[in-house]
């Protein structure tokens, strides 16, 4: 039993820790906070394992925990919003490096909801239906919000 948990943790961690970190970062815009999120999300996953009925994928379940945790953090008075250190951007993609730095700055100007939608849609490749299930927003609402977020992002990038 102990060994099973050990193996499951290792597998889930290897597969999803990176995306949990990115998702948390999209919401919290803080490297340290995003790092802590990964730890807390896995603890919560195992703590609430009995309530996980397997009616969604492990990824969706972990993303749901991540989302709840991050919004709790954002509500917390101790959370220092936008105290941002720039994240570790893997600079092996040299040609885009400048673009990524400025995109990082532009993202800081978006709110967490806008950053979240951009992350879920453009990076995680979620459909509107999946985003609706995760966030509880209607599909039409998501489309409009995402459109506004992109408009803003393009505007900030061209400034």
């Amino acid at each position, binding site marked *: 039993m*102990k060994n099973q948990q050990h193996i499951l943790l290792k597998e889930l961690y290897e597969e999803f*820790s990176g995306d949990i970190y990115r998702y948390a970062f999209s919401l919290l815009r803080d490297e340290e906070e995003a790092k802590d999120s990964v730890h807390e999300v896995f603890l919560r996953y195992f703590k609430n394992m009995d309530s996980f009925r397997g009616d969604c994928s492990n990824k969706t379940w972990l993303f749901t925990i991540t989302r709840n945790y991050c919004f709790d953090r954002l509500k917390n008075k101790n959370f220092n919003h936008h105290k941002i250190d720039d994240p570790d951007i893997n600079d092996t993609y040299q040609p885009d490096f400048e673009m990524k730095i400025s995109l990082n700055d532009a993202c800081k100007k978006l709110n967490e909801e806008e950053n979240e939608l951009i992350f879920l849609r453009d990076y995680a490749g979620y459909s509107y239906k999946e985003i609706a299930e995760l966030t509880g927003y209607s599909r039409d609402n998501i489309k409009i919000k995402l459109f506004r977020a992109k408009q803003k992002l393009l505007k900030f990038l061209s400034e």
Partner: protein
Amino acid sequence: MHDNEYSIFKLVEGDLDSKEKLELLNHIDNCPECREILSRYNSIKGTDKTYYGSLILPEDAQNDLTRLNTELKKRKNISLAYFSAAAAVIIGFILVLSLSLNKVKQYNQNVEVKNVLVQNTTNNTLSPEPDKWDMSVYSLNRQINIIMDNIAENPL
């Protein structure tokens, strides 16, 4: 905002039906402004993906797996301790309950024996002072009733 901006966004998101898509593409072919907008929306989608893909969980967080394992083990031990404590309390409770039930049972048996004895004695025609006997039977019954009431009110 160009009139077609939202449609172009939907085109990039793959959210137009084939008729709308064809109409828009025909327009874009002849409109440099829309072509420019399309290219910006296409490019930002790609850039977002690369941007998030390039965010790497910091090196030191890789040790987190070991820390997590230790913490989960600790939690498990704590819950095991709670479980053992709860089990001990329940077993203790059951023991006390069964002892009390035995006592009540024994007490009832004693009362029955006493009743039989009292009845035998009162029926005994050789009794020298029947009135006195009646009084003691009365007070004994009364005491038994009080005790039985107490037991009923405080089962343990």
